């Protein structure tokens, strides 16, 4: 019997499992193949929802679903934390057992590490995980005017456009609460422009200007002075704030680091087209976990899962795998409380944002609910 182990029950892992099952269902039924999905929690979180949760537009309960509801029943679901990937012996060791594999899919995602910027935990907020979003929701509800700094403190980070989105929504949130006149909004970015892609800069920068949103580029925070409420940068600048919303640095999963499979950020070196882990024939990696020069986005994980599932199915059938990932990403960009645009791009095509509209915003709001159909492999 061939054993496929998928590590991680986020978008990437769940979708790979759900796409793989129908392709090889006869073999699963005949017990020639077993698919095991190992995840350290029995639910999945829809992270894009944090952007709405902090403004109280989605509740915490709306962002979670049980993995049992999302994963195809033909998959063996194991809730356990992997402590080591023993690649030489093709085995995943968990806290409660161990799992031999013929094929391994690494889908362990990424996490924020605010502790890497001294003072950030004490002096700042973020919305990139559940506890951060819960705390920020409280701070925003209490906010009575002053200076808000939205600061990107490291690249790569999940969902590249979320910092711009939160800035736009903040502008409207403050206006609705009659606080905009009493507030300053400053957005900072580490490189020489407000975003990595020029077509997006061309759309967004004038919109920031129209709204009186300030921005600073080449701004690389190295420390937060929590007591005096200041951000200190590598470039020698100091910026004061009343409320700091940081996009903290990110890292790969601890198990990747502990297994010696990652680079210094804990990202798994992966082939940008085949999604095979460099140096291993029987290992694929996808989603946030890889070192690829693509966005850390759920949509990327989705498009990659199609490729990994197709190639795994081919290998199991004894056919040469030929599917290739073309770098595709799709991102909605909320440009306010009730308008949005979107971009898609791949390795060969630059993004071309459409004009922001209410309809695109509605589609995003619908998707916030319908995402679970994507996880199930239906949408």
């Amino acid at each position, binding site marked *: 019997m061939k054993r496929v182990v998928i590590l991680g029950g986020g978008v990437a892992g769940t979708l790979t499992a759900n796409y793989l099952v129908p392709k090889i269902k006869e073999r699963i039924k005949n017990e020639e193949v077993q698919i095991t999905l190992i995840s350290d929690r029995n639910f999945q979180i829809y992270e894009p929802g944090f952007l709405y949760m902090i403004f109280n537009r989605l509740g915490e309960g709306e962002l979670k679903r049980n993995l049992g509801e999302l994963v195809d029943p033909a998959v063996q679901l194991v809730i356990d934390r992997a402590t080591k990937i023993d690649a030489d012996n093709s085995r995943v060791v968990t806290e409660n057992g161990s799992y031999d594999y013929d094929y391994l899919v690494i889908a362990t995602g990424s996490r924020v590490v605010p502790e890497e910027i001294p003072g950030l935990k004490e002096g700042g907020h973020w919305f990139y995980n559940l506890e951060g979003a819960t705390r920020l929701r409280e701070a925003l509800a209490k906010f009575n005017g002053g200076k808000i700094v939205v600061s990107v403190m490291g690249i790569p980070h999940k969902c590249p456009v979320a910092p711009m989105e939160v800035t736009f929504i903040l502008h409207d949130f403050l206006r609705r609460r009659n606080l905009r006149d009493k507030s300053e909004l400053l957005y900072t970015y580490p490189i020489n422009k407000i975003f990595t892609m020029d077509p997006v800069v061309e759309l967004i920068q004038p919109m920031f200007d129209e709204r009186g949103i300030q921005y600073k580029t080449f701004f690389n925070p190295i420390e937060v002075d929590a007591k005096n409420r200041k951000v200190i940068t590598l470039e020698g600048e100091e910026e004061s704030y009343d409320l700091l919303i940081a996009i903290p640095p990110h890292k790969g999963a601890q198990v990747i680091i502990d297994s010696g499979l990652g680079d210094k950020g804990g990202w798994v070196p992966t082939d940008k087209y085949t999604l095979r882990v460099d140096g291993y024939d029987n290992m694929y990696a996808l989603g946030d976990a890889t070192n690829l020069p693509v966005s850390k986005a759920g949509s990327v994980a989705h498009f990659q899962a199609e490729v990994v599932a197709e190639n795994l199915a081919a290998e199991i059938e004894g056919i040469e795998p030929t599917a290739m990932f073309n770098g595709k990403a799709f991102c909605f960009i909320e440009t306010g409380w009730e308008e949005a645009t979107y971009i898609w791009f791949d390795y060969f095509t630059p993004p071309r944002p459409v004009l922001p509209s209410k309809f695109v915003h509605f589609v995003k709001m619908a*998707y916030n609910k319908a995402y679970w159909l994507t996880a199930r492999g*239906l949408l």
Partner: protein
Amino acid sequence: MEDKTQELVEKLLENQDTIEKILEKIILLEKTGALDTLADLAAFVKVVQDTLSDEIIKKNSELITNLGLVSAKFTSDNALMLIDAIGDAICRCDKEPEPVGLTGLLKAMNDPDVKFALGFLINMAKALGRALRERA
């Protein structure tokens, strides 16, 4: 005024190709009467946009999503086989039912078909128990 006219002329000249293409399309639409239909459609789209709200979108998407998740399971091979078999059973079972007591029930249990269905139901109960426990 002069300046504005000049600006306009410049803009038109700059985009001459695009504007010619657009004009051709609009003329065709007008000639066929489709432009009126499009104007009506625009009014319809606008009324939809003006009456929709985040809350309506959320509620409806949630409903569709839940239906979708459930239907994924009820359209699996196994589920389809069962639903198909139930369909056959309903169609074939044209006899008027007779009241059945405990002895009747015991007698029926000797029937090979009933035995088979019971076996299936017991398997179902086992799987249901496991699924319920997993969710507890």
